[in-house]
Every structure is written in C-alpha cells, then in structure tokens.
C-alpha cells in the first residue's frame, strides 16, 4: 500500500469514528441519558450517613 492508500483508509476510519461518536451522543441525549445528571451525585447518601453531615473524625476527637 502506498502512503496515499494508508491515508485514504485512515480518513475513512476517522470519519466513521467521528460520526459514530456523534451518533452515540445524539442517541444518549434523545434517550434522556443526560437528564438530571447532577442528581446522580446524591445517591451515595442515605439516612445513616446523610448529606450535610461529616461522617469521619479522629477517634475521640469529634
């Protein structure tokens, strides 16, 4: 293969990757994958270790 053929293959793959990525993002948006994104950050808390409460101290020093 010549350099030009290599380049051709590379361009085809780059185009595929680009549109693949773009489509994945479009799909994700359309399927509400991005809705309430920031809400996800709260799933780590529960009533035992609630939000707004520090849960770790040096022993005997809280």
């Amino acid at each position, binding site marked *: 293969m010549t350099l030009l053929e290599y380049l051709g293959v590379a361009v085809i793959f780059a185009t595929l990757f680009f549109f693949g990525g773009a489509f994945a993002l479009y799909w994700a948006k359309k399927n509400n994958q991005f809705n309430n994104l920031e*809400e996800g*950050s709260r799933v*780590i808390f529960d009533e035992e270790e609630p939000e707004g409460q520090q*849960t770790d101290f*040096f*022993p005997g020093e809280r």
Partner: protein
Amino acid sequence: MSSQSPTLLDSLSPTAERQEALRARLSEVDRSMRTPGTFFVVAAVLWLMVGTLFALLTAIKFTNPSFLGHTEIFTFGRVRSAHLNSVIYGWATNAGFAVGLWIMARLCRTRVRHTRILMAGAVFWNLGVIGGIIGILKGDMVAVEWLEMPGYVTPLLAISFALIGVWAIIAFRWRQTDHVYVSQWYILAAFFWLPWLYTTAQILLVFEPAKGVVQSLTNWWFAHNVLGLWLTPLGLGTAYYLIPKVLGRPIYSYYLSVYGFWTLALFYNWAGVHHLIGGPVPAWVISAGTVASVMMVIPVVVVAVNHHMTVVGLHRQGWRSPTIRFIVFGAINYTIVSLIGSAMALRDVNLSTHFTDFTVGHAHHGLYAFYTMIMFGGMYYMLPRLLNREWPSAFLIKTHFWMTALGILLMVNVLQICGWIVGEMMNQVTQDGTVAYTFQQIVEFRVPWHWLRSVSGFMITIGHFAFFINVVWMLFRPSKADQPSQPTLLTRPTAEANA
C-alpha cells in the same frame, strides 16, 4: 426479606428477575462484607510490611552493595523485583480489592451474595503472589518489568482474579439502585481492563514471546496500564466516593466526573510507550504515546477541579477526618504526578529524565503519594464500619499520616532532583565531542542522594509500623471494652451537632 440465600446459578442466570426491592441499609451492606473485606485489608497490610522490608534491603544495597551480597536469593535484582511485585500485586491490588469491592457493594445497595467465591479468590490470589515472590527470589524471575512472577503462578493469579471479578459482576447485576455512580464506572472498568491487559501481556511476553521489540512495546503498554487502568481508576473511584461521603457534600460537578472518566479511558491506555522514547521502536508509536500523554492533562485537570471544588470551604472540618487527610493528600498528588508525567513524555524533557532516578521517583509519586495514600484513607473509613469498632489510637493515625506524607514528599524530591541533575550530567557533551562528566563522576555524585533516599524510606517505614500496630490492635482488642456500643464514627449525629 427472603430467608434462603440464592444459589450461584440463580445469581448468574440472565433471566432471573430482580428480587423485590430490598434496598439494604449501608450498615447491612457493611456487615455482609465483613469477612472478605477484613481479609483483604489484613492481606494488604501484611504485604505492605513485606514490601517495606524488601525496599529497605534494596536501599541498603545502594549504599553498601556488598550487604547480603554473598547470598544469591538476596542479590539486588531479585530483592528489587520482590519489592515491586509485593507492593503492586500484594499491597496495592489487595487494598484495591478491599476498598474497591466494598464501595461497589455499598453503591449497589445490596447485601452481597456468594462471599465464599470472593474468599476463594482472595485466598488463591494471595497464595499466587506468595508463590510468585518465592519464585523471583529463587531465580525463576521473568525479566520483564512488572511481570517478574514466574509463569507457573500466573494461571493461578488469573483464575483467582476471575473469581473476584465474577463476584463483582454478580454484585453489580443485583444492584438495587437505578443510578450507576461514577465510582462504579471506574471500578467496573478497572475490573474489566486488568484481565485483558494481563492475559495479553502473559501470552506475548511469557508463554509465546513476541518477536523483537514488540516485547518491549507490549511490556510498557501493560506496565503503564496497570497503573493507569487498574490502580488509577480504583484510586479515583475511591476518592470520588469518599470525599463527598465524608464531607457530606455531593461532588461539585457530576458532569465533570463523567467527562473525566471517558477522557481518562481514551488517553491513558496509549501513554505507556513513552518509556521507550529514543529507543529502537517505530517512531509513530512513540509519537502517539507522547500525544496521549499530553492529552492526559484534560482528565487530570477535570478531576483536580472537581475534587478541589468539593472540598473548598470545608478544609477545617475535613482536617479532623483521617480519611480526608489521606485522600486529599493523594488527590493533590494525583494532579501533580500526572502533570509531571505528561511533561516527561515530551522528547526534550524525557532526554534528561529517562534512564535516571527521576523515573523511579515518578513511579513512587504515583503509586505511593497518590494511590497508596488514598487507599490508607479508604481503609480508615471502611475498617471501623466492617468491624463495628473504633480505631484504637488517634496518635498512631497521626504518626502514620505525618511520617508517610513527609517521607514520600522527601523521597520524590530527592529522586527527581537527583535524577534531573544526573540526566543533565549524562547528556552534556563538550565542544570537541567528548562527554563532560565520566560515568564515575556520575556514580559518585549519586551517593549522598542515596543516603537521603534511605532516610525518607526510614520515615515511611515508621509510618507503616504505626499503621500496622493500629490495625492489629483494632482486630484483637476486646470488642466491648471502654468504648461505646457503636463506633463513634457511626453514631447518629447528636442533638447539639444537629442544631
């Protein structure tokens, strides 16, 4: 709550329905992780002490080369490899199993099933590493960096890892939450990436060695990714869970954490070949590795901003938490070490840093100042909850923190300053084409730096002993003596604290 536990077949069946919503309380999850979690922590801590011992032997050999020089099994090359393998596959991996799997179980919010599989994997993994270290010392070492353990233990390691990985997938499949938190992504990805890296490297380097320098390329693709795609995701996943958790404040930007994950996944795995800059390998691979290394600035800065903005304003409170002290120290060093790493991949910088102690310092910076410190933090949070006991001594925790933090900072500075000067001395060529410094001058220049490095190692050792004593004390102290029925860390906030 169903009374009988599900069989393994039930758990693996793709058609089985999720059980009725049995969202376990965090303390219930902790209780179900008690045996395997404690086992991994104890194994990790024992390996840490073994690794420290090998490190000390290595350090002594640098300043006194004939120390233990007449005993073949303690020759420098083997002790050094025993150190590396016991800290990577013994300490770091066991610690990652302990903290990573516990965070996974907590985020899945389900009492874990089949802890026996996990325990089997845990026991065989550690037997495998013991066999590997013995193999290295008795001379069956594979001369490939990060893959020294002989071929007769690696299948055992692979099977053990598979058992542990299957357990993680089962836990994940039966999760009782809709949302997959970013730590779960990191941990899940790490558990998927390591077996792939390991099998490829084993096949192409140990069982059916590839031709010529393909070995070197595969070697560095693997070795750098053990750090980048196994330990780094575990460390970051832990930080992403515990920083918001301890402070009681959600991560600053969840969007940024997602963005950081994908950029890391995309760029880190190309970066390893920067260890071969200037070497006899195709130039395009090096260029690709350099580009990827520089692109790593994006995920690193994203993580740095996100963690910093989460902690900002709560520094004073956070300082009162052992977990936050260690994890914030680790997170700050993640940013620094990664930016240095990106710079080291530039050809002009690499010219000075390559083949010197700078690289050794960089490895310790990443593995210790970042990863290990985060894992210490994770264990300080996790162990009281698993055992339902408080840490016995705040003094020992503080000793541990200050000795390891100051020790590793001294070590990294010593190694990198020495490495940089050595690199400059090595490369300096006078106008008539001869070298400015002979090799003898360079070796003699390094001697005082080796002593300083031993001092830093000694400090770290003191810290490790403090940690070791605290863990053993905690395990064996009577559970009810002079302490509240629950660990103070777990007690509900008092009325005053709430007001």
